[in-house]
């Protein structure tokens, strides 16, 4: 299945250079993205970054649904930074309607946001270790991540896309049982994270894979506009929780973690230390959370206006732009996920690296390929057919029925 606009020849050896495709399907990528790499031996000479495979048409969808329905769509922009997106969206609407949400809700939002940061960084650590072939660490970090997901499931009802936010506050309160579970898990996690920090500093094979790879100097960060841990690992002070505190972060002391290595090793160190900082923030919140209601009522029609909101998602600065026209359906919703800002430095980081460093460099910006949907085009000979999910399912059932296997009785979740 290839689109006619991009014909690729396999194993083209031309002037000692090979066209090496990483993607759209590749074991090192969680989601599809195409990196056309030109190799000379083991060194990368050129890299073309192509993303947009996950385009789902979310913004167009948001324009024909009400704000409350859009909340659920925006939350599903990404599975791992879902709370950051929904918080930003809610904050935007609350600002447009001039509503102040209760302080208890602000604290609960921060607790969930920091838990999300914890499980996102643990996921990243596992994926990065898997990319360098260190499966043992991958298994350990994901086992610890399960503990965080268990808490989130208890608090929100789901492991990802927890649906804690609502316009005007949060939907669920913290009960003493889950706070107890939270405290115990934080104690265990603190010990494990200390172990990971130690490992990152002393394990020679890991350091040899991470150090000196994917270099992006401070000037390049400012030039290419990188955000989040990528920027902080190069010494740039860029953390929205500190620069422009929002919600309960105005009262919570947050230490910005920066590092000077400016490579993948620096990004690893920044993320591990940020995990420790998240644990401290959650502990502070649990001790100082005020009592009170958890939500206020917000009118359905939002007054006309426009607003730009910035939050610190686990991957960096997340910008939401909302324009309302006085009805209960938004005029324009735009989400700029942090990964979109981090792609621009990718070609610069990849050129001159070894092939073995390409997967970890791509993984080190913690990519979350989140945009619109791509239709599937099947071209067999001269006929070109476009398939949506229903047609694809029917095609698959017919294909196997010809071989004598009947799959049509399997129930498919809609």
């Amino acid at each position, binding site marked *: 299945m290839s689109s006619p606009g991009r014909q690729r020849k396999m*194993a083209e050896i031309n002037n000692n250079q090979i066209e090496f495709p990483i993607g759209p399907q590749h074991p090192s990528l969680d989601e599809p993205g195409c990196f056309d790499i030109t190799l000379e031996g083991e060194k990368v000479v050129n890299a073309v970054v192509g993303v947009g495979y996950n385009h789902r048409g979310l913004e167009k969808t948001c324009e024909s649904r009400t704000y409350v329905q859009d909340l659920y769509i925006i939350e599903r922009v990404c599975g791992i930074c879902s709370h950051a997106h929904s918080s930003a969206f809610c904050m935007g609407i609350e600002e447009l309607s001039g509503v102040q949400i209760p302080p208890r809700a602000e604290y609960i939002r921060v607790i969930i946001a920091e838990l999300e940061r914890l499980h996102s960084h643990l996921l990243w650590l596992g994926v990065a270790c898997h990319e360098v072939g260190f499966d043992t660490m991958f298994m350990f970090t994901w086992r610890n991540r399960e503990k965080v997901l268990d808490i989130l499931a208890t608090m929100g009802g789901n492991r990802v896309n927890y649906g804690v936010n609502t316009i005007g506050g949060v939907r669920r309160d913290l009960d003493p049982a889950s706070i107890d579970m939270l405290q115990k898990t934080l104690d265990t996690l603190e010990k494990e994270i200390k172990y990971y920090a130690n490992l990152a500093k002393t394990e020679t094979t890991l350091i040899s894979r991470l150090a000196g790879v994917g270099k992006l100097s401070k000037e390049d960060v400012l030039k290419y506009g990188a955000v989040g841990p990528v920027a902080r690992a190069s010494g740039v002070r860029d953390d929205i929780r500190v620069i422009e505190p929002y919600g309960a972060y105005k009262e919570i002391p947050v230490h910005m973690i920066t590092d000077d290595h400016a490579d993948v090793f620096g990004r690893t160190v920044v993320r591990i230390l940020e995990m420790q900082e998240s644990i401290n923030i959650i502990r502070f919140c649990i001790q100082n959370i005020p009592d009170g209601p958890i939500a206020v009522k917000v009118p359905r029609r939002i007054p006309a206006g426009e607003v730009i909101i910035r939050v610190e998602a686990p991957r960096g600065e997340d910008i939401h732009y909302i324009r309302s026209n006085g009805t209960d359906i938004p005029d324009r919703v735009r989400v700029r996920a942090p990964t979109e800002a981090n792609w621009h430095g990718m070609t610069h980081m990849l050129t001159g690296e070894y*092939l073995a460093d390409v997967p970890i460099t791509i993984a080190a910006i913690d990519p979350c390929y989140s945009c619109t949907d791509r239709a599937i085009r099947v071209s067999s000979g001269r006929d070109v057919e476009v398939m949506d999910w229903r047609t694809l399912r029917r095609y698959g059932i017919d294909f196997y029925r010809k071989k004598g296997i009947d799959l049509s009785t399997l129930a498919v979740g809609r």
Partner: protein
Amino acid sequence: MDILISLLKVLIFPGFLFLSVYGFIAEFLDRKMYARMQNRVGPPWYQPIADFFKMIGKRTLIPADASPWIFRIMPFISLAAVSAAFLYVPVFGNKAVFSFDGDLIIVLYFLTMPPLASFLAGWYSRDVYATIGATRIMTQMFVYEVPLFISLLAPTLLVGSWSISDVTRYYSAHPLYALINIPVMITALIAFQCKLERAPFDSPEAETEVVSGALVEYSGRLLAFFRMSLDCELVLVISLFSAIFLPFTTGIVWVDFLLYLAKTLFTLLLLTLMKVSMARLKIVDVVTFCWKYLTSVALVQVVFNLLIRGVLKQ
């Protein structure tokens, strides 16, 4: 009658059938130990056999650009070489099925076949990932062959013979001399890990870079036999290692067999420990590491052994 007994030894025990069954068991134990060390459950005991039969039942697809003859014959060359080499390694104590002065060289020669077969299979698959994987296999082979050969030949300097059975006999008679060879024991273990393409030296088949390396286009029956030959290579390597470096034999046949099993499983444990605790090294780092550390240690040991031989002769 002799021919019948020889055929039995070659094909059944301790020949091909024993080798393949022990290969499956070794693969299972390796995967189970690997999983338990990572706090996982691991596969059940019949997993390697189930995988083998499943793969045999799948359709074999040969790419249009690939060379069909080379594609088809490579797994069997690899398997044949490993099975032939196994006959020279002693399983019951000091005596292998066949042995003569110089069979160590033959075994080492046969051991170069599996990587070479993978290389040719990858090169003739005409696929980008396979090409890069195949080049990496060859690069790795150039760097570990030298320390491997030197490490395995250093103990034979004291013995005065290049027959594996003689080496085992000598060191069983003088077990303390085996302690002299500890440095090359370590380098041989690391070089073997390189040959088997296991972490930290699994750059040729790095899943996140070259998908599956040289064997990426293989499927079905051919892949089943390639995997089996890699399992048999594992058994051959651990048997060779324990024959040369872990030399404790009594004279009683069945006790020796149990000792053989214990020694080989201990070697397997060491190899799995190495696999579990390290990340994958880049191919350039493998080259540097092998030349800088392995070869130099092995050479120093050779010189040392020569001196000891001079001392012992007096």
